[in-house]
């Protein structure tokens, strides 16, 4: 390792000094069978060999071999062991950031069981430690770090948006007591948002507020920390991911909320539910669940009444990778749709096998790879077209954004909705509902 810069040495530490056996297990397992190629949309959409997932594994594993194995040190050509030089770093940026949505399809279908997505994240972490996160992605992370939300929405704008949404809610449910509670302690539910909601899709906030109203839930939003996203999960900068996760953890703890309910955001829910406890090395004392699970729970327990006849158009479902393949939430959204729509049709493939929309892995914020993103989006467009559905439901705001772009580009003519919007449309309200005081415990 002589002659390597301090930055490169730091990056190599992530690869050569593993904390546990997970990394060496996966980095040593690929047999170069190439059978993962057809599981990756980048390869399927472009037929470009560079996008075979195994090449991502290989990139990391050949660097690992160069610095960590006898063969790589003394017979580098035998295993094509690679130096961590500038050309390698450029290739890493292109493969790990530029051509992977971290969708996990290849991992699920690998003939051996190599966790390819995990290795891509290790590669991204190495790049982050050397300062090679694409500037576009880094600026989204910076916005969250500096302002508390990734869209840098000023608090006044946020609260005024919520104020008019509250007025709308009161009008809609015809109850002057209906509210969108803010910063209330000792509630049952601290609800989070994807900042795209207050900025572009306020109707999804209204939908959830109406559902909470109907369920007589004790809930609150926080104006200090409501952002469910954690783009540092995508950039794989651990320090920054910790800072962002810590804010939501602290806010939930400070408000003494029993449950932190994660808005419809695939990566955000993954980052907080599954990664944040490990980022912070803490067992959370509160429950962390997705709004998808909460909606299913409300219907199952009869806390809200729904009438599926209110949603009569043909509806299909796009499964967000981080929620489904990497988060195990598979049945809940189907349960909800089966109770709130008359005609629900599945895409092929769906569930654990579903195709990524193309917007995951931070791709939506990395405009430099926008053409590739839309190219792979064509596969999703075809999937949607084949269902004949009029509405595509997806419990993820990043997916919503990508699906809107796919809808426009490929002229699908479908509506894109979140799950909460579908449930809100199907709600049957008791008139008038009695709203609990915000501090009332459920």
């Amino acid at each position: 390792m002589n002659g390597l810069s301090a930055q490169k040495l730091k990056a190599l530490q992530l690869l050569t000094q593993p904390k546990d056996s997970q990394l060496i297990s996966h980095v040593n397992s690929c047999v170069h069978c190439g059978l993962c190629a057809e599981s990756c949309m980048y390869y399927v959409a472009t037929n470009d060999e560079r996008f075979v997932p195994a090449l991502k594994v290989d990139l990391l594993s050949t660097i690992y071999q160069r610095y960590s194995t006898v063969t790589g040190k003394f017979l580098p050509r035998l295993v094509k062991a690679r130096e961590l030089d500038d050309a390698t770093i450029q290739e890493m940026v292109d493969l790990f950031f530029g051509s992977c949505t971290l969708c996990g399809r290849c991992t699920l279908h690998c003939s051996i069981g190599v966790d390819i997505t995990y290795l891509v994240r290790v590669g991204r972490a190495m790049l982050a430690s050397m300062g090679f996160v694409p500037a576009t992605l880094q600026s989204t992370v910076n916005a969250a770090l500096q302002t508390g939300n990734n869209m840098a929405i000023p608090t006044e704008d946020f609260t005024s948006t919520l104020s008019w949404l509250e007025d709308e809610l009161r009008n809609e449910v015809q109850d002057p007591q209906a509210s969108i509670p803010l910063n209330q302690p000792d509630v049952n539910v601290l609800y989070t948002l994807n900042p795209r909601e207050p900025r572009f899709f306020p109707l999804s906030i209204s939908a959830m507020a109406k559902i909470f109203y109907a369920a007589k839930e004790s809930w609150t939003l926080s104006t200090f920390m409501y952002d469910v996203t954690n783009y540092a999960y995508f950039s794989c900068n651990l320090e920054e991911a910790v800072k962002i996760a810590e804010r939501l953890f602290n806010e939930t703890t400070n408000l003494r909320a029993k449950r932190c309910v994660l808005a419809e955001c695939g990566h955000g829910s993954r980052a907080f539910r599954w990664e944040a406890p490990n980022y912070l090395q803490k067992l959370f004392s509160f429950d962390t669940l997705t709004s998808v699970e909460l909606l299913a729970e409300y219907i199952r327990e009869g806390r809200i009444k729904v009438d599926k006849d209110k949603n009569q158009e043909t509806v299909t479902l796009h499964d967000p990778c981080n929620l489904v393949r990497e988060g195990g939430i598979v049945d809940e959204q189907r349960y909800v749709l089966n109770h709130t729509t008359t005609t629900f049709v599945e895409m092929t493939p769906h569930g654990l096998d579903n195709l990524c929309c193309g917007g995951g892995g931070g791709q939506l914020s990395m405009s430099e790879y926008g053409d590739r993103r839309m190219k792979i989006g064509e596969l999703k467009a075809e999937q949607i077209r084949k269902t004949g559905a009029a509405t595509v439901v997806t419990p993820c705001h990043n997916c919503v954004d990508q699906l809107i772009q796919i809808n426009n580009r490929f002229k699908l003519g479908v509506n894109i909705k979140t799950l909460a919007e579908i449930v809100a449309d199907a709600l049957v309200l008791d008139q008038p509902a009695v709203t609990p005081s915000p501090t009332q415990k459920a």
Partner: protein
Amino acid sequence: MTWYHYLAAGAFLLCLISLLSHLIRLVRLGAPNDYSRRRGNVGSAIVFSFLGAMSPAKKESAYLHLPTYTAGLLYHIGTFVSIALFFLLFFNIQPAAWIRWGVIGLLAVSGLSGVGILVKRTTVKKLRLLSSPDDYISNILVTVFQFLTLVLLIQEAFAPFYFLGASLLLLYFPLGKLKHALYFFAARYHLGFFYGWRGIWPARKS
């Protein structure tokens, strides 16, 4: 014991020590400590990882590539049988005639599967891009080992060549991809742990 028995025993010992050192490292590093709240059953997911999830119906790498998958499966069966026979043949224990001819048939098919996989690796562009010399050497050594086993079952005088081939394979084993014989189990354990912790595996019907 002849010179080639000593050679093979030495090669086996070196291979074993090297693989044991990898195993000890894996065990010492241990499993990751997950602080998130477990949602599923890790034990049954790990079992599923080794059994149900390996079924060809579950993996695109199998059901989209059935001929390659079948060849790979036969090739691996041939390898396991050849390794088992190595211990018998080392102590000059010959299987019964009826078993012998069955094994010879199996090794002919598995060896040819190995050749087929090698041909595919050299002719398919994406595989060439992915392959290093190690991939070709590993395939050739294992395929030759299977054919040598086959020949030795027919012609005992072939023993020096057989043990020479086996020794080469054993000496090469820890250097490259053949180590996946060990790491495969570790990778599948981790995958089962990951999917089990989050309640993704064992897979339900969606």
